[in-house]
């Protein structure tokens, strides 16, 4: 019996290019076109079971599988990193079922699939950013019934959402959510930006790239077409504030990128580094190993 050796990635035979059959891809693309035509509106689609678990990026994987062609270059990130295990797993899946070239560079990629971050490198026209979305419905925490939230969107009845922001301000003096902060797309539909930190929210607006959002378990697709206004919910007297950890990246010195806290030892030592590993690496090129290795060598 021939076994697929787990240690050798193979291009799978017996499956269609990009796993999904062509009819399914066409169905997903129709949903994508509708989503682009109604920015921010959640389009129900016949989501399929994928060979990766729900909640691990199946919606975005179906979107990517439906738009990818043999000449595309794919980048997959999780928490901003190409090397995170789930990003590596998804990248390997696409290599196995498409044979396309993969890249870590946000400059070279034609499709970037992401979980929880928007790359620091500004995206261009002819690039597509595909978001993994666990919960597409921004109103779900206020109203658990789908039948009701559909109506709230239909009537643009977003008062209850603003009320939760107001309650935060009354209680904490500020909006007490730091990620997945809802946005109004094209001045019409309330949408979830997926669980990106609110630091990333401004990058959603007027991006030259196409932004597609896939939620596999909930079987919803939505989109932000290029150059579309995306406004984070706020109040005139409490304007939206993207926040980032103070300080600079210990590796590349960036003072503008989103930083991750790295615990160095068990006596409270910590440092901050760019969460976007590709951006950080590009800034560091030619600068040697940086202080992290040195610090670790000491620890």
């Amino acid at each position, binding site marked *: 019996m021939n076994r697929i050796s*787990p*240690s050798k*990635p193979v291009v799978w035979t017996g*499956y*269609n290019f990009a*796993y999904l*059959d062509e009819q399914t891809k066409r169905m997903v693309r129709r949903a994508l076109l509708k989503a682009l035509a109604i920015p921010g509106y959640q389009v*129900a*689609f*016949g*989501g*399929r*079971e*994928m*060979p990766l*678990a*729900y*909640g*691990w990026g199946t919606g975005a994987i179906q979107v990517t599988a439906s738009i990818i062609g043999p000449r595309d270059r794919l980048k997959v990130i*999780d*928490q901003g*990193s190409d*090397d*995170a*295990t*789930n990003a*590596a*797993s998804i*990248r390997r899946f696409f290599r196995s079922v498409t044979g396309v070239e993969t890249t870590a560079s946000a400059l070279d990629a034609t499709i970037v699939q992401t979980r*929880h971050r928007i790359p620091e490198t500004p995206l261009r026209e002819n690039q597509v950013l595909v978001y993994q979305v*666990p919960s597409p419905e921004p109103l779900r925490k206020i109203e658990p*019934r*789908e*039948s009701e939230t559909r109506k709230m969107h239909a009537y643009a009845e977003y008062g209850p959402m603003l009320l939760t922001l107001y309650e935060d301000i009354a209680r*904490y*003096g*500020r909006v*007490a959510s*730091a*990620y*997945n902060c809802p946005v109004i797309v094209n001045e019409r539909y309330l949408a979830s930006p997926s*669980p990106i*930190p*609110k*630091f990333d929210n401004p990058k959603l607006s007027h991006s030259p790239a196409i932004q597609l959002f896939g939620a596999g*378990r909930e*079987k919803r697709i939505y989109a932000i077409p290029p150059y579309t206004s995306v406004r984070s919910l706020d109040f005139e007297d409490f304007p939206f504030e993207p*926040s980032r*950890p103070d300080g600079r990246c210990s590796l590349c010195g960036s003072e503008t990128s*989103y*930083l*991750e*806290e*790295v*615990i*160095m*030892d068990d006596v409270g030592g910590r440092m901050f580094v760019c*969460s976007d590993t590709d951006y950080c690496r590009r800034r560091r090129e030619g600068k040697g190993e940086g202080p992290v290795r040195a610090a*670790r060598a000491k*620890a």
Partner: protein
Amino acid sequence: MAHVAINGGEEAILKSQTLVAEQRRGDVAVPEITLAQIASQLGLAVDRVMSEGSLYDRDLAALALKQAQGDALEAIFLLRAYRTTLPRIAASEPIDTSTMTVRRRVSATFKDVPGGQVLGATYDYTHRLLDFALSETADDAPRADVSAEPLDARMPSALDPLVSDGLIEEEIRSDAEAYDLTREPLCLPAGRDQRLQNLARGDEGFLLGLAYSSARGYGSVHPFVGELRAGEVTIQITPEELGFPIDIADIGVTECQMINQLHADPDDLPRFTRGYGLAFGHCERKTIAMALVDRAMRAAEFGEKVEHPAQNEEFVLSHSDSVEASGFVSHFKLPHYVDFQAETRLLRELRARARSEGEGEPSS
């Protein structure tokens, strides 16, 4: 303790999968388990995987169980992910369970029914004592006696007499094309076709808990198993170029017809109502639970108050699928560094603010 970065992700995954393969094989001094052994000797596990995996194929279900080291939910997931790639060749005619080749058939509502009570193979009257004799392999296989006379080829439903007396609601027949949840997303409010398909694919444990809750007090279900039958039915398709149905296969199914509490329609005489359950293979617990939950979800149809989880169609249908549920629940072990970072920063800010206002803890 030095910090170890999560990198080398791809390398780590490959090594992890090799480790899984090694653990799956287990002690090499013990012979490797074969698919034939699983398919024939772990038949009920195979039946569950086929049912909830929505694919009737004993060999593939056995393979899935072997690959998943016996984890039913993982095996169901494997089968679902495989079935999604299969082309749709034809839609079968509705199966007719009154023509079932019955292996087991019992009614809890009538002492005797046309066709007779057929106990068949059941654990119901075994005493749950560990049989230590099974810890050794036996040389001679046990053989059950075969009856001198065959059962009736056509065994009518035990509910038929109630139907002819008008004591129970008629079966709702429809020629409309059934909703297909494997091709279309769940659409609420759902028709009965969507509900039954969802329940048939739904997690046995979840449905069992819901059915139990509805019968125990969180629901107003008063059920009687009108009939429970298991056996083989013939699958027919009607190819376009032929225009008449042809037999293509026999499959094993279990069916539960539940008789439930009265409904008094203001314009009509009071009647019993129905709940229905059907699953591949031999899955009695699943089909009884399914029939109970099906009836519970019909509350609104009969003007009953919808106040319990099992009666709430959106609650039940949105949470019954084990592939969706286990994927989402287990995704919390994926990295959430970025969100956690943002949340931690917010928490520190809120604490600093509270402290400066003199409302927080004295110091930390």
